């Protein structure tokens, strides 16, 4: 029963949304938006569940002084500090009538002075990781890696003046070898073909997975039967 009802709901909702795709008449055209709202309502409650879990995990860690428990103090303190700053509107110039994100509020300060710089720091790491990953991927150890290296070299040269000057002197019959032209060809022919092949595979995979879910063939996401 614990599985049958969710399976029936999945089947009914899946079928209704497929039908809604082709029928613009009321009430079908509203179904997509309506189910999204239902999902958001559930997500709000689940968010409380998530916050509760975060606290439970870290408070347990602190209580039992498990490995790296001191980091958990930072997490729990941060959680309560931001929650209090927002809920109690600490430092909001207009008091209770003002917005919790108003300039001058503690919440805004915490966001600007800690959250945003930390987020930017994590994002900036990407630049270094791109360099290290490229170094490994472009080492010409195999035939495929060599092709990748050459293609990447052509693409990287294109926006630079060097890319233009290296090959601008080529005669008209060999203009296709001019780096900007070659780069455009790499992007729009082999690269595009590969991308499209992947996209077609993905689209078919999504259809197949969705159908497995709607027909109840794929059930692993439903969890236990309460055995």
């Amino acid at each position, binding site marked *: 029963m614990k599985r049958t009802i969710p399976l029936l709901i999945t089947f009914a909702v899946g079928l209704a949304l497929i039908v809604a795709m082709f029928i613009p008449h009321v009430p079908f055209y509203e179904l997509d938006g309506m189910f999204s709202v239902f999902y958001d309502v*559930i997500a709000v409650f689940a968010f409380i569940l998530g916050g509760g*879990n975060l606290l439970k995990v870290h408070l347990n860690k602190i209580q039992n002084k498990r490995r790296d428990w001191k980091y958990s103090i930072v997490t729990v303190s941060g959680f309560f500090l931001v929650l209090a700053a927002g809920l109690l509107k600490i430092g909001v110039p207009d008091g209770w009538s003002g917005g919790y994100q108003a300039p001058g509020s503690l919440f805004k300060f915490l966001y600007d002075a800690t959250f945003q710089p930390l*987020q930017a720091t994590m994002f900036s790491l990407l630049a270094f990781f791109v360099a290290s990953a490229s170094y490994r991927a472009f080492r010409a150890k195999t035939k495929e890696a060599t092709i990748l290296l050459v293609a990447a070299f052509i693409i990287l040269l294109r926006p630079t003046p060097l890319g233009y000057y290296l090959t601008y002197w080529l005669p008209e019959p060999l203009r296709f070898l001019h780096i900007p032209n070659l780069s455009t060809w790499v992007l729009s022919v082999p690269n595009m073909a590969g991308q499209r092949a992947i996209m*077609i595979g993905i689209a*078919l995979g*999504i259809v197949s997975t969705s159908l*497995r879910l709607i027909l109840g063939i794929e059930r*692993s*996401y439903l969890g236990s*039967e309460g055995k």
Partner: protein
Amino acid sequence: MPKGLVLSALVLAVAAFTVHAQGEPPAPADSVMQAQSAPAPSVRPPSALRAYDTPNDHGSNITIEWEVSPDDAAPGSPVTGYEILRSENPDGGFESIATIVGSATIYADNSVEDGVDYYYRVEALAGTGTSDPVQAGPVTASQQWFDRSRANLLVISVLLIAAIITYVYLSTTRELYIRKIAGLEAVNEAVGRATEMGRSILFVPGIQDMDNVQTVAGVAILGHIAQRTATYETDLNVPVSRSIVMSVGRETVKQAYLEAGRPDLYNDDMVHYITDEQFGYVAAVDGIMVREHPAACFYLGAFFAESLILAETGNSIGAIQVAGTAMPTQLPFFVAACDYTLIGEELFAASAYLSKDRKMLGSLKGQDAGKAIAMLAMLIGVGLGTLATITGSDGLMTAYQWLKRLFSLNY
């Protein structure tokens, strides 16, 4: 009374009488005054005005189309735009509903009620004056029961669904061949390695919610991995960035441990929530990697910029890494940084592949049939297009255009 006013009154009276005598509805005196004082039309009106119920919609929408004024064609034209007026009465009461600046020739009026007759007028605007209006109507908005613009999508969907269902049915009676997927064969290897090393396994189901089919596919694979970790008594750590994923993930892992006969090894904290914030989540997962040194990392789901940060950190700690996503922009990062990558469709095939369930494998074969249809259509399309260009045949070009339209899904 001044003479001027008397004359004006006389002129108005005569004008009103003349209009009435010609069969036109009597107009109020002030509107006649307005008509007389308005500047004479300086530009010619637009033409070929058409107003029709917008097709394939849920009603409350009428489309108005016209051809530009002949004075709007030349550069430096005096026409600055078009005024659209609407009324429920063909003879008057028109009110402006929109002013179109430039040379647009189409407008969708979405402020109408279904089942009501409407009349439309369009005037060309030039400076402070307007052209004579052109009028169209009556037209009524209504809802449609079938979106004909999606008929091609329906045909393709029916073909695909039929192929998948046929193969699911066939799979119950015969053995189906499925090619080996290296990334999925490596799942056992990764779990075995973690067991030998006495270290944990980290599973990241992406940063999207359960309404994303990639997350569903990732969680389905989590179930199979959890069965193996239960069998081998290996630690499993699943940090998630969405609360609903946490709930579903817990149920999935719990079920896997039950099926493996080791419910005693399961605890709710295996699947734990971190944060919805993308980089906050990445920082936490990176921290787990650096502190706990998991022997194997799985990244299966929907990923964005965090893909490379996670995969490179995993690489730096020497973990065996298996990734899978259907985000084409993130695939190169995973390919560069991970040991195995499930590319697009392989992610969706993983659950079926690992479960070895006949019906699930049948759906994979149905997917292959879909690919065969796509390849055939592409070959025919390329052939028709090439032949049409070489021979200049209109028939071949029409067939080519028809095939192209059939597979053009612009939504």
